[in-house]
């Protein structure tokens, strides 16, 4: 039983019933990013002065590559849903909003894949 008018229903107004999932995903990825970021800082400090071979050996260690890949996946995911909210809050022109939302998703997937492919190449190739 709904008190909304049939016109509002036809327009698709009202809750999309997806808000809670978005809210939880934002918080869960945020919590995961705390330890992952701290590990990343330690890694950066450890390789700051290293030559290429040492850097390659460290980044391809499973104990470093795994948290780094998790950081990339979780970070780009958290960025994707966070920036989405900012766009929806401030951009009200329909076409511009859709375009920016699409670009946000494209960079989230494309940027993450660039990073992941690079880490895997450093680990497995040559």
């Amino acid at each position, binding site marked *: 039983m709904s008190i909304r008018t049939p016109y509002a229903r036809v327009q698709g107004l009202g809750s999309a019933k997806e808000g809670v999932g978005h809210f939880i995903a934002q918080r869960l990825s945020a919590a995961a*990013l705390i330890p992952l*970021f701290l590990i990343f*800082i330690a890694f950066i*400090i450890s390789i*700051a002065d290293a030559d*290429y071979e040492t850097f390659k050996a460290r980044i391809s260690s499973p104990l470093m590559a795994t948290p780094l890949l998790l950081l990339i996946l979780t970070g780009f995911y958290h*960025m994707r849903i966070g920036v989405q909210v*900012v766009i929806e809050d401030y951009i009200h022109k329909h076409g511009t909003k859709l375009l920016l939302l699409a670009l946000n998703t494209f960079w989230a997937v494309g*940027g993450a894949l660039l990073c992941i492919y690079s880490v895997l190449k450093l680990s497995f190739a040559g």
Partner: protein
Amino acid sequence: MAHTPMAERPLSPHLQIYRWTMTMATSIIHRATGMAMMAGTVLLAFWLVSAAMGPEAYAFAQGLFGSPFGLFVLFGYTYVVFFHMLNGLRYMFWDLGHGFNPQFADMTGTVAVAAAGVLTLLTWSVGLYLRGGF
């Protein structure tokens, strides 16, 4: 409907009307740092792709990040991430229903701004010390 000219209607008060408060400032900085980190993902991708391209590209990227301007950007980036992390923790406690008392919320905001600075300085001190910088 999209073509109906908008009538001149009174607008609700916005940023320039209100006195700045710590909760308002941290909320705005949280979003600003979030957007800054989106730009930061470009740096991360650039660094990892350069590394994967070989020793010369990696040396070039390391040279850029190691230049005075590069170090300045990375220093700022460190603060940005630490602030976003600490202020995000604040939001998590709010989500659990704690910390809404105005004085306490102002205090935790000040702590987030200051502690992010302390953690940034600490991180860079440790980094420079381990590299034999000083």
